[in-house]
């Protein structure tokens, strides 16, 4: 626990006061009840800067208990500096166990990735969300986007996707590809790559999203239909790594990091998910998420 020397009192368990934790849990329940709907919440200031995972922390700290095992990743890596800092903070205020092993974790807080390893119904994944509003790039005012969601008025969004196709021959959205949740709300999956988007669909685990700065919570409950926005004739597709291979493992059915070497010309590829990569190297048994896109790539390999 952090000691406050002047008044000699310590901060509450899991840092946030119980009243606010209760509020966050209630809002999370609402979010689970209305998949994809953004629930406004108080979002108190944290000793971590806005935009650095405060929303994720609110969720994690509100749901964590002493028996939980926490995994904290950033860009797929357990060792990323900000992940280390956030992991330390949660550990310091809750004394929870921490792990790098995806299978061991009960709560996984993440920034910009879903683990390659399949998650179970005993696990919760918490996303740090910079911009919860998928419609923000087509409508700048919150006042109006709330109305658009209420009325399922998504014409502007569809039009933008279509215009991108006309201009560039593809829907150029990279990370944070908009999805339709439960056939009702368009939702931002947070800036995860397209590779991860299909893994939101019909999952075993619970996905919770916290956007601290914008003060919104939302959720994708287990076994919920999540579809990337696509047209009948122009389909969503994941990133293509068919022509490259992981330098350490030779594997390529995973999201890859591209690393330029010091000569500035040659580049090497590595599996991005650090724990998944470790397990591949150690030749441990690991069950990957399965979805139709991954299946197609695997079929093509055989």
């Amino acid at each position: 626990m952090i000691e406050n020397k002047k008044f000699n009192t310590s901060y509450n368990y899991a840092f946030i006061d119980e009243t606010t934790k209760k509020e966050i849990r209630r809002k999370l329940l609402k979010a689970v009840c209305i998949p994809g709907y953004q629930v406004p919440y108080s979002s108190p200031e944290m000793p971590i800067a806005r935009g650095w995972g405060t929303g994720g922390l609110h969720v994690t700290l509100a749901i964590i208990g002493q028996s939980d095992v926490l995994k904290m990743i950033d860009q797929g890596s357990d060792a990323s500096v900000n992940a280390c800092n956030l992991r330390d903070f949660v550990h310091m205020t809750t004394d929870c166990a921490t792990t790098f092993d995806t299978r061991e974790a009960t709560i996984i807080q993440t920034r910009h990735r879903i683990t390659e390893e399949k998650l179970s119904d005993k696990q919760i994944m918490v996303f740090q969300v910079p911009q919860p509003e998928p419609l923000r790039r087509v409508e700048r005012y919150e006042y109006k986007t709330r109305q658009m969601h209420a009325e399922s008025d998504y014409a502007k969004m569809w039009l933008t996707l279509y215009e991108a196709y006309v201009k560039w021959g593809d829907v150029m959205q990279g990370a944070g590809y908009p999805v339709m949740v439960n056939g009702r709300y368009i939702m931002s999956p947070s800036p995860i790559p397209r590779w991860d988007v299909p893994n939101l669909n019909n999952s075993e685990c619970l996905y919770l999203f916290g956007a601290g700065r914008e003060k919104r919570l939302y959720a994708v409950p287990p076994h919920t239909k999540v579809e990337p926005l696509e047209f009948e004739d122009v389909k969503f597709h994941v990133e293509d790594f068919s022509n490259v291979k992981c330098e350490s493992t030779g594997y390529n059915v995973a999201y890859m990091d591209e690393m330029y070497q010091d000569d500035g010309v040659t580049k090497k590829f590595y599996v991005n998910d650090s724990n998944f990569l470790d397990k591949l190297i150690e030749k441990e048994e690991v069950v990957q998420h399965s979805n139709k896109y991954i299946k197609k790539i695997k079929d093509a390999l055989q």
Partner: protein
Amino acid sequence: MAYVSVKGGADAIANAKELVEFYRLRKRTQPLEIKQIQSQFRLAIDKVMGEGSLYAPEYAALALKQMEGDVLESAFVLRAYRATLQRRYYSDIISTREMFILRKISSSFREIPGGQVLGPTRDYTQRLIDSTKYNESPEEIDQFLKEFDGKIDREKLVDVNTYNKVIDLLKAEGLLMPAEKSYDKTVKDVTLEAIKFPAPRSVTLQMLARAESGGLMALAYSSMRGFGDGHGTIGELRYGAVKVRITDTKGRKRYIGSINVTECEMITKINTTKESKIPYFAIGYGLVFGQNETKAICMSILERGIRSGKKENPSNNQEFVLYHTEGVEAMGFTNHLKLPHYVTFQSGLNNVRESVKRNQEETEDKMKVYKELAKQQQQ
């Protein structure tokens, strides 16, 4: 793998933390005392308390020391601390009419009730760098204080009292616009719930009072300079101490202390309202912790604009102003750009490469131009 190197993150953080502490202390100078910061950096403290949304001069001084004088970072520390404190009471409405005046001026009238009181201000001093401050000694400070004390007429001190406000003059004459009928008087607490738009005036006032001083100034200046409704006239700007009271559980009023605030009432001309065709004056209101006159003035300009200005001006748009002047949030999000984004970037890269492949011919032309340029640069 640069700063996401395998398993090295925790060590790197610990080292960086130690190094920044080294930078704070490396010159082995006398440690700053909290009391020194509190008394000699009065205006920085006021800014930190205002943006940090917690009236606690001692904590603000501590934060300033910890953050090597970065006002916004200090405000952030104060806010984070504030969020851990339980809110036990809401104070009764403070009355600036009973303010113990330290300074009050009006630019609307030559004379105002109680007169113009300049008080502590550098407004009419030349901003020349003062070399005598370079080697200031405790003896000189003593000397100054002794001389200053000698000039005070103790018998006159009792005369200092509370004063009526300038806007009362306009009110009495019926020139001040009454509150709009559509005026939303709901009182929200922006620290306890997310705001929705259009938000009531209480939200505007709270958020502007917590906003970043420079951010408010940029928008208020844009409003005065041409992207707004021209400039108003300061009805009254006052700085002083006001009493804070709470009502306890038994319904008794309790005085819990006093805080220093700056209040600005900006008079603007409003020609007509929807409800009436008679021209009126209207007031824009600003109230901030401590002495931060620029912020109070800017707040009053923006508050008026949000209530009745033309919506096409950014400074008159409630959502635009309130979201983007929130300094602690803006700073955090700006700095988050320093976090690694290579997963996100890879996804975009993948798209762009595919698009380039689809337009092979055009790409080859472009590459030719680049190569040509590179050749010319070499020669």
